[in-house]
């Protein structure tokens, strides 16, 4: 990168390919004693060396992720595809294989009936906590996002979904579309006014929101915004639940999302929360800091490299013998689900916590 910037290496397609192969997983920044921030450099470089975008990229960054309404519409179409029998037919006929889409299609989440549409709705009472709903988390993982708000309420907060919030802009930023990322960031700063934490349940979005102060140097409110941003595990770990958790006898392993562990340096909070649940046994996996290969849209743009990482990660999960693997990022959830056998459950950390704190135990339900 530096060789290109300083004119010692020509900008050729193979040089760009090497730089595009970077996951921007921040594993290197996390351990860099010299303090090099790879993600910032990578993004700035991609912005400068941006090639002409394909129609698919322009569509994805501009239309699809550019506005939540569009995203929800697309998610509904996807749901139609999955429920109407079209998916069954397409898989059955090998159509996806013909189109070279079978691996990609396998990554698609099952779309639920109901989405979270942020309109200022709130639950619970106490300290205000504003929930960032995101695009994928408010649609494909709408239940997890609802659980996030309910958990915050169970930890003594008034949890709300501020209206006017949009996609965090991380995908645009990683793709080098800085202008679009800034527009989205401005809209979010506008939407999340007030006090208390801004709670995020997607590691990638959380890292992005924490970077708004760098992305918007001229926006005086961006700094305060970024400092309010907390991953859901951070927000819960620094509060006390109104009632203790119920026992859940279960073995779990935790896949540290790169954008939690490396980009936000969050690793203790999720472990503290799991430890507090009686009956939960956490089995740590080998190579915990290794990316699962999801990395934003990396698993679509670099299928082979991504698949290699996925194999390694899934092998490490299986070696723990845990019944469930937990993580804090939608990309990781989809990537692990696509790579693991049916016997291993892949869940968001929030969903297990919700079960412990918000779901009545089977006994109580009976009585």
């Amino acid at each position, binding site marked *: 990168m530096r060789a290109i910037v300083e004119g010692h290496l*020509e900008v050729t397609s193979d040089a760009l390919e090497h730089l595009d192969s970077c996951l921007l997983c921040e594993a290197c920044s996390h351990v860099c*004693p010299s*303090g090099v921030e790879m993600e910032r450099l990578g993004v700035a470089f991609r912005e400068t060396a941006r090639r002409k975008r394909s129609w698919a990229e322009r569509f994805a960054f501009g239309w699809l992720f550019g506005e939540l309404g569009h995203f929800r519409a697309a998610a509904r179409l996807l749901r139609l595809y999955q429920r109407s029998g079209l998916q069954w037919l397409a898989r059955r006929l090998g159509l996806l294989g013909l189109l070279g889409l079978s691996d990609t299609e396998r990554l698609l989440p099952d779309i639920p009936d109901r989405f979270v549409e942020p309109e200022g709705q709130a639950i619970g009472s106490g300290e205000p906590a504003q929930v960032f709903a995101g695009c994928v988390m408010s649609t494909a993982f709408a239940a997890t996002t609802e659980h996030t708000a309910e958990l915050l309420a169970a930890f003594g907060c008034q949890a709300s979904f501020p209206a006017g919030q949009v996609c965090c802009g991380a995908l645009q930023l990683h793709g080098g579309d800085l202008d679009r990322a800034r527009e989205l960031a401005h809209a979010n700063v506008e939407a999340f006014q007030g006090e208390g934490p801004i709670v995020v349940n997607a590691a990638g979005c959380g890292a992005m929101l924490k970077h708004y102060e760098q992305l918007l140097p001229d926006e005086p409110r961006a700094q305060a915004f970024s400092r309010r941003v907390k991953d859901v595990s951070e927000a819960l770990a620094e509060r006390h639940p109104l009632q203790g958790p119920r026992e859940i006898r279960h073995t779990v392993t935790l896949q540290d999302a790169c954008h939690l562990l490396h980009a936000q340096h969050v690793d203790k909070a999720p472990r503290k929360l799991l430890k507090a649940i009686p009956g939960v046994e956490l089995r740590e996996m080998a190579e915990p800091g290794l990316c699962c290969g999801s990395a934003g849209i990396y698993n679509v743009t670099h299928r082979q490299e991504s698949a290699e990482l996925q194999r390694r990660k899934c092998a490490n999960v299986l070696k723990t013998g845990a019944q469930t693997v937990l993580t804090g990022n939608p990309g990781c959830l989809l990537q692990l689900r696509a790579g693991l056998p049916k016997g291993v459950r892949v869940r968001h950390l929030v969903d297990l916590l919700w079960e412990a704190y918000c779901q009545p135990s089977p006994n109580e339900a009976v009585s």
Partner: protein
Amino acid sequence: MTSSLARELERIVGDGYVHDAPSEIIAYSYDGTFQQRRPDLAVSPATTEQVAAVVKIAAREGCPIIARGASSGLAGGTIPERGGIILNLARMDRILEIDTANVCAVVEAGAITLELQQAVEKVGLFYPPDPASSRQSTLGGNVACNSGGPRCLKYGVTRDYVTGLTVVLASGEVLKLGGKLTKNATGPQLLQLFIGSEGTLGIVTEAILKLLPLPRARVTATAAFPRVAHASEAVARIMASGILPCTLELMDGTTINVVEDFLEAGLPRDAQALLLMEQDGADEDMARRDVEAMAGVCRELGASAVQVARDAAEREALWAARRAVSPALGRLRPNKLGEDIVVPKSQVPAMIEDIAQIARRYELPIPVFGHAGDGNLHPNILFDLRSSDEVHRVELAARDIFRAAIRLGGTLSGEHGIGTLKREFMTEAQGPTAVELGRAIKRVFDPRGLLNPGKLYPTDKGLEGFLANLPVLAGFTPG
């Protein structure tokens, strides 16, 4: 360099293991210093036989061949200064055998130092040499540079653990030396010549390394001092007291703070010097007694705080901090000239005082850390390569540091090697006769001068402007 040569090499090492595209060979152009020069080709062989075949082709073409492992070296030893073929040994990364009956390990040159250490510790054995870069550094590179590390105070350096080598000679012939042997008096040991020769006499592809039983107990402590002079005096007194600690490391105030910026390990930011002391042994009480005795010396010399690590996690935090020192200095200035002088143990206080004076004389920041217990110090001159005025002052400061070390009975390098960085000082350090003998030995092994040419011995450019004469791409300054 033609692409037909690349294709010929590819037939030996396999598809995807020969690189000649500019965007790829740039990855093989630098090391842990600020130097950089691109090779013509980079080749990654998988076996000793492939290395031999590649070397034969290089010999036929009269093409320089530079072996490298992780290239984390700090002396420019793997910079392809005159172009040629980079022989990347990272692919030969297997630990071939851990032989518990003969208490040794057989490794390929590209095996990672830390991975060997972890593997042998699992069976209760111990490989002591521990360069700070052990996570990346390769054992072949350690042999080539005769690497050391903090534990070498008690346990010795890489040289003390090599009992066998497989070497590919400049002709492409494969030579096997030594074996799984504790003793060997079969004439002068040719094997020893290759250790520290930085790939100039032959290419090490496999090594047999002696192991030790793993010490059961380990006790670590730190002592913070309000003045560097007090800490260096403590080092000299501890070493004269009859204790042989496993480790006695010094960090000065600048290095303490820069590493705290990175790790927040809880080091005392207001101290001017920190000693990291460790003793290991068969039982905890013995190790603890030695650490207590060292702590006593520190208190007598005015240490403001002495702390013993309570558990393995606290000890590991201290070691993580120590290992991060060198790269963390990159936070302060764009470039650094990391020195590696050694002086007799009793001269450590005098050397540290000299370094402080030199820093003042040339108005340069020169933080000091290192293995104070064995007299091996790493004064790091921080600078910006883009400022020619600074570069000139760095040259003078480096020269004065070397000369001060030599005057105190010391030498240029304890564990990094000579490479390009210190070659112009070799005659002053060793004397003209030793340098001429070294060159004569090189001619015996490599008459055409193809193995890592230009390294170790002075060039005809001389001392004047030695830094500006190093291979550096203008404006491009990694490291």
